[in-house]
């Protein structure tokens, strides 16, 4: 709300994506190009208008390669955010900051990956003879004992969450059922026309107890790009502007990369609560003023912790909150109306930003009526980020 803030001064003017698959058959750079060209066309802009890029440190496509391929440049802003999927909303924050500061005019935020067909995150990368760095020292507290996969890192916190809240794994299942229900009516979703029941969730095989297969997001090939420009400029473009009403990053005390196990309470996500406080301060929106939300769903347990972090319910009450269709279409807070990463695709959170934009525009396949504000969150268990998107 502060006048000096960048909040509200930048807007998403275009979104673009490839198909979401298990084997794209194309290079990751080509996916980045296709999504970017699609987003530029959506906005009514040309590659020559682009003067900035923001992406993840994990993305394999350097900004300059993408710029070279689409014929953009010269570039005056390029920025990358670390910590896996925690970077998703932060790319838009970086772009909004650059635009609000007058450093760049048109920034492409992108994520392109053949995560299923080429570089799978879930198979457990083993550092057999690591070079001694701060990060290999960190993984040394986990990998030698077999804690090697994202599912296993999250499961440790999920187990404690169940213990502290008294909930059962059915609470995780409600999240999975909601996302798959929404994906079932989204033709772009991998799980289009394939809803599941709670019984399906409970019957799915263990991955890392207490997580089952249906608690884990998909692995996907695909790309998403969004175009950020000034709110002023966005008003003159093809689409109604979707304002970045608030954007924030957060890392909390004693933060680790997926293994913040040393705090008194390991079931909650204080870094996301910190992001929530910043968002609410920036735009003045309160939890009940979101008509829908895209809650990062790499693993279902952290959806519960995020609902608590944002104040949609009190700590420990998310297992009750997600029951009875409350987070489904027609419920009090429909989440992940595109199907989320459990149902649509795992594009490291960028497809969730695109869905937030569609809900504000009124073009989502599962539209929510009268959307004023959408919350979009990024990867959890890691230093993270989130956005409030709203009508221009």
């Amino acid at each position, binding site marked *: 709300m502060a006048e000096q803030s960048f909040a509200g001064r930048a807007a998403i003017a275009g979104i673009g994506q490839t198909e979401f698959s298990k084997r794209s058959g194309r290079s990751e750079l080509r996916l980045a190009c296709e999504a970017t060209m699609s987003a530029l066309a959506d906005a009514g802009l040309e590659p020559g208008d682009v003067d900035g890029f923001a992406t993840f440190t994990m993305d394999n496509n350097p900004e300059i390669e993408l710029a070279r391929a689409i014929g953009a440049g010269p570039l005056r802003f390029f920025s990358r955010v670390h910590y896996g999927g925690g970077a998703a909303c932060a790319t838009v924050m970086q772009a909004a900051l650059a635009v609000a500061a007058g450093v760049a005019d048109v920034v492409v935020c992108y994520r392109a990956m053949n995560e299923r067909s080429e570089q799978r995150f*879930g*198979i*457990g990368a*083993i*550092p*057999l*003879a*690591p*070079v*001694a*760095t*701060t*990060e*290999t*020292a*960190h*993984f*040394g*507290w*986990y*990998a*030698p*004992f*077999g*804690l*090697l*996969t994202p599912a*296993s890192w999250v*499961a*440790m*916190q999920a*187990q*404690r969450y169940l*213990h502290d809240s008294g909930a059962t794994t059915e609470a995780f299942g409600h999240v999975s059922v909601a996302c798959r229900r929404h994906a079932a009516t989204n033709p772009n979703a991998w799980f289009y026309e394939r809803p599941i029941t709670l019984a399906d969730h409970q019957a799915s*095989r*263990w*991955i*890392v*107890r*207490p997580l089952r297969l249906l608690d884990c997001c998909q692995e996907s090939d695909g790309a998403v790009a969004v175009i950020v420009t000034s709110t002023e400029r966005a008003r003159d473009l093809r689409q109604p502007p979707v304002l970045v009403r608030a954007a924030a990053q957060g890392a909390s005390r004693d933060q680790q990369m997926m*293994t913040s*196990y*040393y705090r008194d309470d*390991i079931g909650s996500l204080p870094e996301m609560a910190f992001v929530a406080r910043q968002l609410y301060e920036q735009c003045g929106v309160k939890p009940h003023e979101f008509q829908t939300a895209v809650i990062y769903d790499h693993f279902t347990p952290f959806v519960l912790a995020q609902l608590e972090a944002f104040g949609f319910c009190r700590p420990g009450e998310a297992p009750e909150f997600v029951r009875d269709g409350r987070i489904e279409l027609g419920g009090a807070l429909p989440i992940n109306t595109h199907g989320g990463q459990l149902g649509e695709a795992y594009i490291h959170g960028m497809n969730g930003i695109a869905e937030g934009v569609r809900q504000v525009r009124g073009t989502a396949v599962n539209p929510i009526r009268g959307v004023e504000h959408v919350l979009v969150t990024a990867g959890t268990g890691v230093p993270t980020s989130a956005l409030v998107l709203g009508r221009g």
Partner: protein
Amino acid sequence: MDPHHALALPHPRPGITPDNRFFWDGLRQRELRIQRCAACHRLQHPPAPMCSGCHGFEMESIVASGRGTIHSFVIAEHPAIPPFSYPNLIVLVDLEEGTRLVSRLVDVAPEVVAIGMAVVVDYERIDDELTLHCFRSLETAGG
């Protein structure tokens, strides 16, 4: 250990830096060490180059009693990644000194592991360079 076996199934290793070397050296001597600030005696794990409490850079270590309780745990089943055997019980242990660490729980059935279970440290020699800590149920270890 059969050297061919070791070659066939390499074990994941830590990156060893000047800040954590004392810990891995300790395991080879069957000692579970905890980093302590030489100035304010604050314990911290994982270790760091300095004390985040008093900001001193002189760090030392103590030897833990090896007793603790399970704060949380997971039972890894899929994917099965060599050289680990599955299901793999991985635990987060509250040491009685107050720090917490990730380890493996051995000789305990998956149906039996529970938060709050009393455990005691043991050691698994992987090869000449690497020994790991693991934990056993205090009850069955007769501790």
